[in-house]
Structure formats: structure tokens, C-alpha cells
């Protein structure tokens, strides 16, 4: 989006300079730049009562995608990695998050073997924050009649996640059976959707790159649609069995025109066995 704005602004400046060179212009470059930039940033869409709308406005298509980061990494840390979360230099592993020793060892083990043990290879869905930097995109559907928010995921198993907005709290992890998507309770802080989640199992990777977690994991996520095309996402991770302290990661996502592509996870080896196509 920022690139789009810059492109439009530069184009406008070039037009203005061309017109100015002909002696016809009475407008300054700053005025042109400002007016074009303001037009290119679309306002955050809202319901009639003013609540932010995280999904499509009637009559349009689109979804959230193009994450600014491809793995969980603590805010303020600069570490090179590819879109799968594979580190460029494994010696930087300890900077990614405040790992406990066993967790750092396991993260480095997973990195060293090229993420070969990633559960998504066996069609185990990504979950937690990973869905928000995983390929495929997602939608955020506000079901205001029943005080719920649904997140529909295009990646992984093309699953969906439920966020209760009816005042309940996220459960004590020790009191519930852990699930892949956990138990989520949300509330509003001004225009920001705040979601607290707990009750996860430990059968999935909650980030590209293989950062470990345990069933003690709790998340506080903040979703802010700062303008029509930008979703700001922040997640605070607390897992006292895995990390030495709570830590925060954040990135932005962009509004993508069109429909989420219809893709499904297939465990090719198993299917080949099933079909006899070895």
C-alpha cells in the first residue's frame, strides 16, 4: 500500500512538473502531492453504527493477505529469514524470541533439518498467529447478531476459527482440553479488536520456522484496520514453559482484491498409497 501511494504521488509530481514547465500551473508540488495521497488512502469501512468493518463492504470482494512478516519474531529484532521462516544464519536463532534453553535447542534442531518435521507436511493445520503469516489469506467475519467473530482461513486446512464476543474470558489452560485453534474471547478497545486465547494443544507449529510452544501458551492479539487496505496485527505471546518472559510480535497485512483461492491440503504420499499411484 505504501508503495502504491508513493507511486501515485510520484506520478502526480511528474504530471505537475510537466504542466508547470508549460507555464500553466498555479499549484505547488506539496499541494498536489497531498491531495493525491489523501485520495489514495481509502478510509476504514464501518457499519452504520460506526463499528469498524473487518471484512468486505457490500458489493465488493477481497480478503486479508500479503503479510509484512513470514514468521514470529520479537519486535525490534532484525534477523534474516525466508518466507518459510528458515533463518539465513542459524547462529541468529537466539535473537528471534526469549527462548528457554530446551526451546532454543528444539528451534535450532528444526532449523538445522530444514523444517522437515513441520506438521503442515502431514496436513496438520497451522494455527495461532501462524495463520496470519501463512499463505492463502483469511477473512474476518463479524457475526454481530450472535456476538461472534469468525476467521476463515484460505491456507492450511482451509479451516475457521471462532472468537466469542459475548463477555466470556479465555479459559485457564489447565482447565480445558487443548485444541489446535484454542479458545478465544474478544472485546473492543476503541477500534481495535482484542482477542485473548488459551487452551491450545502442542500438536502444531504456531509460527513458520518452528518456534516451539506448550499447552501453557496464551495469546493476546490486537487487530486494527487502520485504513481500508491495511490491517495492523500485534500478538503478545506468553508461555512460561517455553519462553523466559512474555514477548510481542507485530506485522501488517494488506487488503487483496478478489476471492481466496480454493486450495486444500493433500498428503500426497498417503493419497498415492490410497490410489495405488506409487
Amino acid at each position: 500500500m505504501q508503495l502504491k501511494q508513493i507511486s501515485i504521488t510520484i506520478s502526480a509530481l511528474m504530471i505537475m512538473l510537466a504542466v508547470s514547465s508549460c507555464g500553466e500551473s498555479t499549484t505547488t508540488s506539496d499541494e498536489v502531492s497531498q491531495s493525491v495521497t489523501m485520495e489514495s488512502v481509502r478510509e476504514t469501512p464501518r457499519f452504520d453504527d460506526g463499528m469498524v468493518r473487518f471484512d468486505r463492504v457490500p458489493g465488493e470482494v477481497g480478503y486479508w493477505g500479503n503479510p509484512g512478516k513470514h514468521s514470529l519474531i520479537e519486535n525490534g529484532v532484525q534477523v534474516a529469514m525466508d518466507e518459510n521462516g528458515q533463518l539465513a544464519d542459524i547462529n541468529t536463532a537466539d535473537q528471534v524470541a526469549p527462548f528457554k534453553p530446551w526451546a532454543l535447542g528444539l528451534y535450532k534442531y528444526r532449523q538445522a533439518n530444514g523444517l522437515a518435521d513441520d506438521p503442515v507436511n502431514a496436513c496438520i493445520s497451522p494455527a495461532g498467529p501462524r495463520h496470519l503469516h501463512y499463505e492463502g489469506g483469511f477473512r474476518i467475519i463479524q457475526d454481530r447478531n450472535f456476538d461472534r467473530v469468525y476467521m476463515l482461513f484460505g491456507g492450511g486446512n482451509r479451516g475457521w476459527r471462532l472468537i466469542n464476543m459475548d463477555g466470556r474470558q479465555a479459559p485457564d489452560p489447565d482447565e480445558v482440553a487443548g485444541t489446535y485453534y484454542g479458545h478465544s474471547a474478544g472485546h473492543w478497545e476503541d477500534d481495535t479488536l482484542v482477542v485473548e486465547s488459551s487452551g491450545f494443544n502442542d500438536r502444531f507449529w504456531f509460527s513458520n520456522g518452528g518456534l516451539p510452544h506448550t499447552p501453557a501458551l496464551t495469546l493476546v492479539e490486537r487487530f486494527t484496520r487502520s485504513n481500508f487496505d491495511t490491517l495492523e496485527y500485534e500478538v503478545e505471546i506468553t508461555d512460561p514453559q517455553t519462553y523466559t518472559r512474555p514477548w510481542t510480535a507485530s506485522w501488517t497485512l494488506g487488503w487483496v482484491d478478489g476471492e481466496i483461492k480454493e486450495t486444500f491440503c493433500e498428503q500426497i504420499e498417503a493419497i498415492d498409497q490410497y490410489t495405488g499411484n506409487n
Partner: protein
Amino acid sequence: MKAALSFLVLLISLSGSLQAQEGFPLDGTWRGFWSVPGGEETLVVIVMDLDGENINGRINPGRNMVFFEEASLDPENWMVRFTSTSKADEPIVFEGMLENLGAYDRTITGTWTIAGVENQLVLTRE
């Protein structure tokens, strides 16, 4: 019949991955048989979990269960060590290496020393 057999193969191939456990690598129930080479094998079942700081463990849950006294995991080389005392008041020391971390049925291969006698033991996670 052929379709049913194929479906069974599919289920078996999926079963391991569906039960994967990706958190603290010692969490869970482990089973193995200790013995001196060529000697009589003795079953041991061990349950381990992490409470945030310490590795807790129980040996042979049931009437003869005993608890870990000390336990450690070195993530530099994945060496596991724990100590206990049997119901017969015999000291137990186990030292082994955690292997195949990415698998649900990962193993710990090492020595089970009881009453001063070293035995071989491979623990497999169930």
C-alpha cells in the same frame, strides 16, 4: 475389499502424524525393557512432564511407582539424565540420548543403572 484395505493403509499412514506432539520433547509416556546384554528383560514405564522449571517423572505408575529425584535435559546434545530410588531401596540412574526429535515415537537410548549394575535401555515414546 480392496477399497477397505486401501482405506486401512491410508489410516495407518496418517495415524502417526495425527498424534504428533511438538512441545517439550520429553512430555509423555515412555516404555522400554532394560537388561544386561543377553539377560532377562524387565519392563519399565516412565511418565515425564515439564512443570515450567523442572522435569517431573514417575517410574512404573502403579503400586510400585517411584518418583524422579533429579532430572535434566541438555539441549546442546539432547542428553537426558534422571535419578530415583526403587521400592527395594536400590539407587537408579538413567543416562541416555534423545533421538529423532521430530517423530512422535522418538526414543531415548542409554544405560539404566540399578544397584550399581549397568543395563541397556531404549525408551520409546508412546
